[in-house]
């Protein structure tokens, strides 16, 4: 008799495997650095650096393929906390965080810190408020948890539908970032890049579901972390002589301020810049790095922080990983590890931005237009930076330097005069994190469509559980790719909208469902619908899909949505009858840290009952 996979222990050789993966990647970097010195061409270097890790991810996905439902949807519930933390951090930061957050800190300096602080606090809040209870229930998806909590198929189906916008928006934003990188460094167009990325993440998700996402995601996190660490540490050594960028970039601030003043960057007044995030199109820098609340006033700063914090805490893609560890205690540790890794990235991104700004302004600003550094031409060719003597004074001022927000991190190694292999390394790192995040969003979206919506709507369940999931993954990846080929979206603003949707729709609902005994099915439905409707109105009328400017109104609207949703949930719960005994019993069991996972126990009982019925039928037949 085979042992149920959830009872198997984690592979004791995981540390050795990932040590080998990391060592192999470092060896690849060293080899390519040597080949660059030996005269290898840049296209060949870029293709080797990017394609070898992609092949590795596919090999890991094939190696972790599965046909068992508990492996496919919950990774067998035996992922060690640190590895789950790797993937949680990759999902929370993603390619959008890696490139767009770094670029936003470059443009807004102090004011952009609200974003990183929001992610960090959100990871923390999720670990305290939601994650242990979702782990106890063991539900495979967030809508499934809500459906079981309230004993309601309608709540489950409604949650699945309302989960679509936040997950789908993050999915397209991450695919766009990955495709942009592919189009910059591989011989493919953006459209072909989109199709390739969609096919790759769909293949990973179809092969092993949550199991392959966990093990490829861990490798992708390590590639991202190693790539980022090598580049930023090298730049830190060049600029400060100390290999600790997070500690030393403060020492460059006086030089940075001087370079900004020389280039003509002067302090701005709060509200002067129409409170909007920098877009993806090339823009000049018009705010000093250290000026507090220059673009965002304290209220905008606070609303952006809270929107991202509560959106991260209730993000379906993060919460759906709550069931992959072996116990509640392990899941709490996984959340803390994820938080630690996110915090490390959030502390590193401002160092990257400060270094990039110092180098660019020191080397270019007010230099004669006729003798600009050679790397500028290279970055200009990739549309990462534009410089021109617009006013004809013979020098380049701050207003004549246009930077692509998402290209700042990629431009840093070239601007610092580092070998080309480190530019490609940074791109490979960003691509790895974007792939991990996009595959997780794709799986969360598709698993919910198949397990929550299809299984509720098709009572006969024509397709098996895994077949429905495979079909949903393929269809979702195709839909995301087609959408990206048609629509032009800004990854950062799209991600902000997704976090706002998650905050407004799911944060109040989960808060009431877990922490308030009196919350009823209709109360949860009212909370979810109210928050979702508020954000839908903002998305349509506020122009977040490109019709008009979106930005901090989105963050503020999501906070209004949360308050209204909480009020609606409480009012409707109090108006209707008390929760049923079954709902009460489920909630009490969910709050009990001991005992078995509720979902697994129910499955085992159902399997035992089916076996007993079958045995009885056989006996009566004989």
């Amino acid at each position, binding site marked *: 008799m085979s042992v149920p996979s959830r009872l198997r222990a984690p592979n004791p050789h995981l540390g050795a495997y990932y040590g080998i993966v990391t060592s192999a990647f470092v060896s690849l970097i060293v080899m390519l650095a040597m080949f660059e010195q030996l005269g290898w061409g840049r296209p060949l270097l870029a293709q080797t650096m990017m394609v070898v890790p992609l092949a590795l991810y596919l090999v890991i996905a094939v190696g972790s393929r599965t046909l068992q439902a508990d492996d496919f949807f919950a990774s067998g519930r035996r992922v060690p906390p640190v590895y789950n933390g790797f993937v949680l951090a990759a999902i929370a930061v993603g390619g959008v965080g890696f490139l767009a957050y770094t670029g936003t800190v470059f443009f807004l300096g*102090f004011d952009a*810190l609200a974003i*990183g*602080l929001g992610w*960090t*606090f959100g990871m*923390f*809040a999720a*670990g*305290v*408020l939601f994650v*242990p209870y979702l782990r106890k229930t063991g539900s495979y998806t967030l809508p499934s948890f809500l459906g079981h909590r309230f004993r309601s198929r309608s709540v489950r189906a409604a949650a699945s539908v309302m989960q679509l916008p936040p997950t789908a928006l993050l999915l397209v934003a991450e695919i766009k970032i990955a495709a942009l990188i592919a189009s910059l460094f591989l011989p493919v167009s953006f459209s072909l890049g989109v199709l390739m990325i969609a096919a790759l993440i769909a293949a990973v998700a179809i092969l092993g579901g949550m199991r392959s996402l966990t093990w490829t995601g861990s490798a992708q996190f390590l590639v991202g972390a190693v790539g980022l660490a090598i580049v930023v540490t090298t730049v830190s050594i060049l600029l400060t002589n100390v290999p600790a960028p*997070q*500690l*030393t970039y*403060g*020492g460059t*601030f006086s030089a940075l301020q001087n370079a900004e003043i020389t280039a003509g960057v002067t302090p701005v007044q709060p509200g002067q810049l129409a409170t909007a995030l920098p877009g993806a199109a090339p823009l000049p820098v018009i705010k000093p790095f*250290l000026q*507090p*609340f220059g673009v965002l006033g*304290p209220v905008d*700063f*606070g609303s952006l*922080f809270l929107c991202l914090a509560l959106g991260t805490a209730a993000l379906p893609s993060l919460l759906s990983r709550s069931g992959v560890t072996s116990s*509640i*205690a392990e899941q*709490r*540790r996984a*959340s*803390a590890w994820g*938080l*630690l890794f996110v*915090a490390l990235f*959030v*502390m590193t991104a*401002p160092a990257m931005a400060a270094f990039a700004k110092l180098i660019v302004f020191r080397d270019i600003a007010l230099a004669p237009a006729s003798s600009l550094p050679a790397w500028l031409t290279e970055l200009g060719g990739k549309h990462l930076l534009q410089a021109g003597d617009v006013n004809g004074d013979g020098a380049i001022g701050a207003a004549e330097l246009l930077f692509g927000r998402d290209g700042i991190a990629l431009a840093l190694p070239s601007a610092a005069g580092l070998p080309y292999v480190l530019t490609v390394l940074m791109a490979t790192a960003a691509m790895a994190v974007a792939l991990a995040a996009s595959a997780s969003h794709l799986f969360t979206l598709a698993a919910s469509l198949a397990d929550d919506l299809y299984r509720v709507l098709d009572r006969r369940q024509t397709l098996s559980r895994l077949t429905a999931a495979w079909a949903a993954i393929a269809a979702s990846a195709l839909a995301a790719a087609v959408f990206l080929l048609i629509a032009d979206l800004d990854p950062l603003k799209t991600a902000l909208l997704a976090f706002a949707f998650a905050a407004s729709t799911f944060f109040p609902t989960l808060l009431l469902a877990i*922490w308030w005994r009196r919350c009823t099915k209709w109360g949860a439905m009212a909370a979810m619908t109210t928050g979702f409707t508020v954000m839908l109105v903002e998305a349509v009328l506020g122009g977040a899909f490109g019709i008009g400017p979106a930005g901090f109104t989105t963050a503020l609207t999501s906070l209004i949505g949360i308050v209204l949703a909480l009020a609606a949930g409480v009012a409707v719960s109090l108006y209707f009858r008390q929760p049923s005994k079954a709902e009460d019993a489920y909630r*009490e069991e969910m*709050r*009990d*840290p*001991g005992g078995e996972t509720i979902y697994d126990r129910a499955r085992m009982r159902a399997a035992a009952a089916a076996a007993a019925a079958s045995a009885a039928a056989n006996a009566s037949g004989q």
Partner: protein
Amino acid sequence: MATEVPVNEHPARDRHQIQTLILAVAILSTVLLAVFFAVTAASSLNRFGFLHFPLGFYLLAQGLLIFIVAVAFWFIRLQERIDLARSESGELG
């Protein structure tokens, strides 16, 4: 006339839930208050330096993050102690 005092059938469960609620509220409020203080006082704190950073900038860029991570690991220890107390009382009872 003697008043009938309702008997609590699940003292360990109720104690566990109250302690868990108090811990969650206390720990989240502490961190939120720290964030609120750092945001509102950032401009004033920037007059002071720490590791070559303006203090207000440092708190938002690194200080609060380190604080949150430390509190998260500390929270796990406290919550596990509360959970253990419940499971032990369940075994005895």
